[in-house]
């Protein structure tokens, strides 16, 4: 049974519009590109096509999962290296070197660059958890992975970011 009775503008306003900033942020970070707007437009088109199948429990997770999948389709279409499956990470989660520094002042542009450097599967869980503030369950729903994978990817992604930022800190204290 259709929730919105075929009125697409109404559906748009309830199912897409409230989550548009989150969708755009996710698309910008996943595609790392100006194409974010086009990807979000494509996702919105799909969402409105499938809105009749939407049961209304968790609109944000529902729309963001469409956006996420559209991004991956776009990445594959661009033959992007990002679409390659994640290779085994050499850095074990939770590794801390004896010289690990406490991060006092984290430079925002270094952080931005560090996030951009992450493989897409790590970047997406960071964006969904930290920027969109989704629960582990919702991250799992949007990314289409089990919760255990969410936890391990988050741990590794965070570990990589810390490692990247502390490495940068120790470089800049030696005159870049």
């Amino acid at each position, binding site marked *: 049974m259709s929730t919105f009775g075929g009125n697409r*503008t109404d559906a748009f306003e309830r199912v897409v519009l409230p989550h*548009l*900033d989150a969708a755009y942020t996710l698309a910008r970070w996943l595609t790392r590109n100006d194409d*974010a707007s086009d990807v*979000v437009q494509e996702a919105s088109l799909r969402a409105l096509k499938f809105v009749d199948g939407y049961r209304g429990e968790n609109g944000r997770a529902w729309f963001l999962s469409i956006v996420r999948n559209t991004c991956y389709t776009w990445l594959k279409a661009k033959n992007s290296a990002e679409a390659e499956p994640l290779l085994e990470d050499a850095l074990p989660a939770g590794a801390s070197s004896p010289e690990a520094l406490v991060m006092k002042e984290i430079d925002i542009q270094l952080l931005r660059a560090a996030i951009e450097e992450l493989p897409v599967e790590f970047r997406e869980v960071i964006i969904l958890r930290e920027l969109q503030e989704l629960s582990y369950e919702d991250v799992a729903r949007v990314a289409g992975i089990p919760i255990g994978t969410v936890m391990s990817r988050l741990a590794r992604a965070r570990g990589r970011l810390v490692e990247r930022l502390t490495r940068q800190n120790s*470089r800049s204290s030696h005159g870049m």
Partner: protein
Amino acid sequence: MECKECGPLLSRAVDGELDAAQRANMEAHLQACAACSRERDNLVALRSALKNKALSFAAPEELKARLRAQAAGQAQQGAPRRPSVPWWRGLAAALVCLGLASWSFAHFTAQSEQSVLAQEVVGAHIRSLMASHLSDVISTDMHTVKPWFAGKLDFSPLVTDFPEKEFNLVGGRLDYLHGRAVAALIYKHRQHVINVFTWPADTNVSNALTAKNGYNVVNWRQDTMEFWMVSDLNASELAELKALIQQKDAR
């Protein structure tokens, strides 16, 4: 609990996703273990840095408008057929659209050179930050940096330094943009890195300030030299640096 068990759980701990027993065991371990304790502090600091609003984006107004129109367009598919319109109205409308289309095409072709170059410049800026390859010649002395470019470029770039205004020259670098070798001068203003790319003018682009991927891009022509400045620093302070550079002779 040992470090081996503690490590993988730290991430869940900072998310508050451990049960009481795990939390208690971990706290006991952290009391005694400086390395895991430091790792936990690093994760907390990282999470707090990630709350920075500058990492998120607002959907552009233009996108919102496009999506509304798209949704409305889909809604009209089931609408009743409109009454027929006099044939000459259709022709007039077509001519207006054609005029508009050719104006848009000309306008956007000129716009796109600016947009494409701005995108390239932002890419170069980000890469310079990512690979920690900010400078080839690290020196705050412009009399060291300027001669460094000799023999590497077919032009001599304007090298300036404004320590009294806190725009500090940090170094220089060779880069490649717009199909040619260019000079990159790197400045720091407070914690912000600013790349100023310069080369002999060869574009049809007018002076502009744009934003791409969250970075501000300012470009201008000065004494037959092209200048492109990129930073996450705000536009008004970038304009200050531009004004300071414009007071110097670029040739």
